[in-house]
């Protein structure tokens, strides 16, 4: 634990608060390219999703799965190109924050679905027939 801590703080000089990073003209151009690539990929994935829904070219039952895959890919594109989540050492906090967020969202969604489907368990059978 202390090893990671030491590593986290060794690069303190290059560690900046969000929005506080020093920028040079070169970096702006570089960043812009990343955003353009990201925008292109995101638009492409969106277009493919809309295309899939309307087409009869692919096996119909596979479409929901394909949409799911495209949705996950879309999230990936956003994380990498717009939120700049990478595996680099200076991204430790961001990756941890993302993991925390995913964990909480997962807990909320899975928990809610489980609770809500289980909801009428203790109700009278008559009500269950009506539901």
């Amino acid at each position, binding site marked *: *634990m*202390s090893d990671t*801590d*030491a590593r*986290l*703080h060794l690069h*303190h000089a290059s*560690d*900046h*608060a*969000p929005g506080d990073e020093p920028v040079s003209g070169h970096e702006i151009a570089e960043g812009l390219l990343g955003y353009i690539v990201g925008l292109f990929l995101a638009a492409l994935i969106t277009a493919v999703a809309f295309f899939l829904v309307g087409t009869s070219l692919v096996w119909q039952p596979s479409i929901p799965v394909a949409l799911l895959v495209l949705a996950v890919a879309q999230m990936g594109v956003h994380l990498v190109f717009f939120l700049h989540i990478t595996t680099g050492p200076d991204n430790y*906090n961001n990756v941890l*924050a993302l993991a*925390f*967020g995913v*964990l*909480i969202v997962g*807990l*909320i969604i899975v*928990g*809610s679905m*489980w*609770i*809500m489907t*289980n*909801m*009428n*368990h*203790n*109700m009278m059978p008559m009500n269950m027939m009506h539901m």
Partner: protein
Amino acid sequence: MLGKLTWADIPLDQPIPLIAGVGAFSIVGLVVIYVLLKGWGPYLWREWITSVDHKHIGVMYVFLAAVMLLRGFVDAIMMRSQQALAFQAPGYLPPDHYDQIFAAHGTLMIFFVAMAFVIGLINIVVPLQLGVRDVAFPTLNSVSFWLTATGALLINISLVVGEFSHVGWLPFPPLSELRYSPGVGMDYYLWSLQISGVGTLLTGVNFVTTILKLHAPGMTYMRMPVFCWTAFASMLLIVAAFPVLTATLAMLLLDRYLGFHFFTNEAGGNVMMFNNLIWIWGHPEVYILVLPAFGVFSEVFSTYSGKPLFGYRSMVAATMVICILSFTVWLHHFFTMGAGADVNAVFGILSMIIAVPTGVKVFNWMFTMYGGRVRYASPMYWGIGFIVTIIIAGMTGVLLAVPPADFLLHNSLFLVAHFHNVIIGAILFGMFAGYTYWFPKAFGFRLDERLGKAAFWCWFVGFYLAFMPLYVVGLMGMTRRMQHYDNPAWYPWLLVAAAGAAVILVGIGFQIAQLVVSIRNREELRDTTGDPWDGRALEWSTSSPPPPFNFAVLPHVEGTDAYWLMKQRARERGAPEPEPAYQDIELPRNSATGFVCAFFAAILGFSLIWQIWWLAALAFVGAFATFVVFAWRDRTEYRIPAAEVARIDRENRAARRLALAQMEPAE
């Protein structure tokens, strides 16, 4: 033109809220006139209202919390006296008004007392403990505070214009839907929480960034004081949980304003989903409040025992485990809603598991005192009172986590006693301990100890008198929120509970007296060195009150209890650290952004409540324009020259050198 607002909405037929409201607002008005006549207006504007200094913002939060505590406590006294009088009688509060009182009491106490107090202390202390000059986003911090104050203002306006929610501190549908609550009371509740919720969320973002990114050199994560860790966990929970609250209340607003059917009985709405969503926020909220209180006690026990905190690493681990686990137990608030045994059992067991890390903490605090040279100052009184009280709260909590027991106790006064046991016994006691402990840091003089201890005893005894009887009548079957009752077995217990509330009232009287007496005797109580309690963390290494820049030179941290180590070295050397090379310091300029934003937010909230659409649009444009003006500002910082920094720091160093000379050298 004015939406639903008419003269009929001023409750002239209800004397109690009207007189209270007019009285309160005329007192506020008189204070404002007095301040302006005295010529303090510019000072207030410059040093407080537009301040982006975390210490000043923190003090304003605590002030807001204290005022709202008085307001919420008046509600509490009214409820206790109503139940003492309403045995086979109507009492003096009509049901319609009684409903508003318990709704306002809960809403104020949670959102504007506990939250404001916790965030206030975190604001004052965390940047100092981390050894930095301010939070990550100082102007955002000011916006957060003023949005919170806006929420409080809207709730208090509801006293004189219209009405407040009748539904309780959480607006459960279908009762809170338009069909059953057609009045504006529900909308006052919803919009004030939406506005203050934005402020709270921004605070969360601000402090997560601050604690992760801003540190004095050498302040690694595992050297941060435990209060910083608990603040971090609390702020992570805010960032994760408050969006759920905002989304849930937004859905309810859509139901009420635009005819949606998220939580209605008809058209496919699901009332149960509201329960589920609100408690996904509601349970972490408990830990948002209680974890910083645990942090305060960790600081207090270690300082007044003259020992490092026992089990620092286990304390950090327990805090972070609670942070995650708090998101896995929410169903225990609605075991009786109809879920099957599987679901109830899993959440019951998870609820019991979360008691384990809390137990770890209790043992750590006790072992911190064990073998230490304990000084019984008043923060320690709150601390020891807290340990006794939180154990009872934990026990009854574990009992309520057993689903079959919960079926018996759900919505009874046993539950009310349990959560007051947590909120008063842990959170409020923690905040009072922190208030006494850090008061000299914020204002430069200590609080009167004798009156502080008297206040503690009144709160402690009053709490037990007021809430132990509620456990009893809860077990006897008395449900919460009863305006009157006929059961003679409950009556004596409710009389005792009312007496307990009166004892707490005396305690609050002592606290006000303590503040007045301390201000009058401030020269005798002056803290010259900035380290009145022989403290251990970095906030004590600077003067009291700290200069605007906190630290003349950022301290160099070499371990946990950073300031203790510095003092240790100074004692060995027989002299304080050599004078550093002073440099110019740049600080963020004051900004009226927060105040102006909140001004527009208040108008926005009010016009949305009364459905004055043109005014709402104007206010929204105004708030957005404020943001644009802020974003286009040219000058963001001002500079304090090195000579001025040196002058301020040398004064403090001289006082410390004097104190060191009076101390015996280290053996």
